[in-house]
């Protein structure tokens, strides 16, 4: 235990000292405080508009939080997830002479500290916005913080550290929990039908005695209602049950044997987490999804730089969804949404109908600038640079498949919407071309920012720069379309937009190919 306390104290101290040496930290602190003040400030209007600025409203909102979060947390622990372990823990903490239960509590401690801060914010808001007396809110904050955390920590220990339950039994437990939640939601649906559709149904649902009688989750709501609103028969009985369950679970967790069998699962988590952190450091989206690969073959119809293309093609053929990815799904969804929009609102936007898809495409490109592709892995692979071919060819063949993917995604976003927006064949082709250009801009811009900008501005600065530059490109295209459109007509404006987009893409490609000459730029 002394080791864990030392670890917590020293790492916290070192992290704070290191952060204070960076000027960016102060900017972040100001930004975060300003953000929270903005959110809390805007909540005032929301609370007033919903007429929930009273103790009853407070219990409703907190009950909603309990109902949304507590079952999810329990399921997470049952699946042996929800706790953060690092590879350093695996190396130094797991083999050390510390009780495995303490290791779990230590991992949970970060969440408890976060919950502590959260309770303070809730208490302040309770007094200011919900007009709860200071004594009442203090009583609730202290008692609820203690009981809730004791109970949740015990549930976590009993589920995460359990060495008796089999995987089947854990799966059954999760299914039962899902079943209970489904039944409760059905009950909510029944109330919805019975008492007309209004947000009052949520109040009716969360305050209903049936809900308060649901073990742990409902008892927690009853406990909250007792402390804030005063006693009723239901909330007193359920609060007693809640406190008894916390006590009982504490005894069970204390007595449970735990020799550290969960370490094996925690090691897997730590390895995955290390991969996610590494990806995040590179500025990529930290997905932990591991796709299942299928068998595939490819015939290499070329040599030197062309081999990069065929290798990527082989990798995509092994993918169950081939070249279709998250972007394809988003493009398809956006295409359908535009089609529906066009069907109902074509008359209102008929003059600008050609700009709808490019506008949405630009927005998607702008938002998903961090989405990693096989291409982004290519630039960190030394073999790419060792292949005996020109940097221009290597850049082209390393990105070719991404351009093909962009064409496919461009078709997906355009094809359905084209009917309801009344686009002719030429307009459809040009719209797809714009999508491909936008994606290519993003691709080549990423090469430049990875090589140059990251050195001066860091990862976050790089992302902001990308967004800014991508936004500027989009703004230039849009502005030129609007100006020339206003003077020479929509068709000319549209053509100018495509011309400028292609020109910027070509320019970025030339710059990127120069940077792509050696790996030094990307180290």
């Amino acid at each position, binding site marked *: 235990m002394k*080791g864990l306390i030392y670890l917590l104290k020293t*790492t916290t101290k*070192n992290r704070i000292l*290191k952060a204070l040496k960076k000027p960016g930290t102060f900017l972040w602190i100001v930004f975060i405080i300003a953000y929270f003040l903005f959110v809390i400030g805007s909540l005032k209007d929301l609370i007033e508009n919903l007429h929930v600025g009273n103790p009853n409203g407070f219990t409703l909102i907190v009950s909603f939080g309990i109902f949304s979060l507590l079952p999810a947390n329990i399921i997470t622990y049952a699946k042996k997830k929800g706790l953060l372990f690092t590879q*350093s823990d*695996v190396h130094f903490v*797991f*083999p*050390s002479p510390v009780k495995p239960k303490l290791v779990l509590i230590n991992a949970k401690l970060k969440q408890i500290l976060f919950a502590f801060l959260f309770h303070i914010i809730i208490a302040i808001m309770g007094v200011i916005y919900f007009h709860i007396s200071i004594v009442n809110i203090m009583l609730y904050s202290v008692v609820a913080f203690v009981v809730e955390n004791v109970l949740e920590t015990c549930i976590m220990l009993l589920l995460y550290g359990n060495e008796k339950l089999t995987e089947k039994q854990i799966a059954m437990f999760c299914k039962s929990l899902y079943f209970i939640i489904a039944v409760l939601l059905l009950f909510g649906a029944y109330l919805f039908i019975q008492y007309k559709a209004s947000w009052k149904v949520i109040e009716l649902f969360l305050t209903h005695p049936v809900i308060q009688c649901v073990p742990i989750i409902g008892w927690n709501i009853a406990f909250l209602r007792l402390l804030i609103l005063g006693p009723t028969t239901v909330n007193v009985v359920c609060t007693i049950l809640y406190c008894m369950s916390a006590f009982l679970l504490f005894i069970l967790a204390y007595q449970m044997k735990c020799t550290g069998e969960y370490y094996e699962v925690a090691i897997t988590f730590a390895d995955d987490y290390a991969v996610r952190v590494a990806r995040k450091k590179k500025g990529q989206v930290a997905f932990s999804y591991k796709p299942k690969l299928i068998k595939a073959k490819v015939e290499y119809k070329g040599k030197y730089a062309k081999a990069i293309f065929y290798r990527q093609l082989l990798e995509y053929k092994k993918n169950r969804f081939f070249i279709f990815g998250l972007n394809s799904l988003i493009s398809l969804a956006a295409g359908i949404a535009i089609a529906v929009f066009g069907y109902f609102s074509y008359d209102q936007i008929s003059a600008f109908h050609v700009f709808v898809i490019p506008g949405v495409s630009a927005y998607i490109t702008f938002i998903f600038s961090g989405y990693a592709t096989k291409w982004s892995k290519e630039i960190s692979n030394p073999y790419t640079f060792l292949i005996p071919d020109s940097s221009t060819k290597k850049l082209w063949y390393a990105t070719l498949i991404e351009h093909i993917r962009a064409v496919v995604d461009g078709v997906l976003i355009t094809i359905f919407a084209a009917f309801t927006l009344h686009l002719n064949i030429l307009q459809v082709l040009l719209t797809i071309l714009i999508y491909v250009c936008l994606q290519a801009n993003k691709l080549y811009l990423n090469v430049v920012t990875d090589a140059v900008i990251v050195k001066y501005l860091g990862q976050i600065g790089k992302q902001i720069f990308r967004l800014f530059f991508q936004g500027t490109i989009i703004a230039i295209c849009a502005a030129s379309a609007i100006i020339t459109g206003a003077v020479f007509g929509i068709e000319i404006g549209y053509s100018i937009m495509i011309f400028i987009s292609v020109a910027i893409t070509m320019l970025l490609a030339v710059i990127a190919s120069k940077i792509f000459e050696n790996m030094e730029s990307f180290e």
Partner: protein
Amino acid sequence: MLEIKNLTKKYGKNIAVEDVSLTVPDGNVGILLGPNGAGKSTIIKSIAGLLKFSGMVEIQGIASRRIEAKKIFGYIPEMPALFDALTVREHLEYICKAYDVNNDDNYMDVLLERFELTDKQDKLGNELSKGMMQKVSICCALMIRPKVILFDEPMVGLDPKAIKELKKTIIELKNNGVTILLSTHMLEMVKELWDVMFIMNKGKIVGKYTKEDAKDMDIDDIFFQITGGETE
């Protein structure tokens, strides 16, 4: 003494290690050899209590998962993973707290000096090279003053001087009665160190030799004879 009886480790339906039994007596160096995927690291991780397994592992007669066993047990993993926010010295201080060992004789400074880390002692974990991290990992395991110590590929990433120092340390540990189990591919590096050799293949121990059994036979010859490979 390190004793393993009938250790079996499965990943789903795949058997990684099957019914392995081995003993390394006090003051002996056991080496665990085998081709890639033979199950060496799985055994080491099982002994270190990091994996679930069936069978029995005892350290000085105490079940390896018990706190008493962990207090006298050192482990150097193949890939060192230091805490980002701890300095080299703080790693050793953490070990002192976690294992309740004192540093009255300035053993910490002796280790730092020995592995050329004195001038790096204020560097954070994420500021070190792989070789430096490995040295810190070794120092941390030695700081425990273990009775049983496991080395999983300890020489990977070390410079020649550090390898020499590590070999010297292993001989000293052995002379002090410490039980050592060392898993490696670098046959050349452990030639003069070993007392008992376990050769693994496909999750099983396929050969066991003591120094006396081997007589004048070369370690390479024994290894390739058992695993079916060829000597150069």
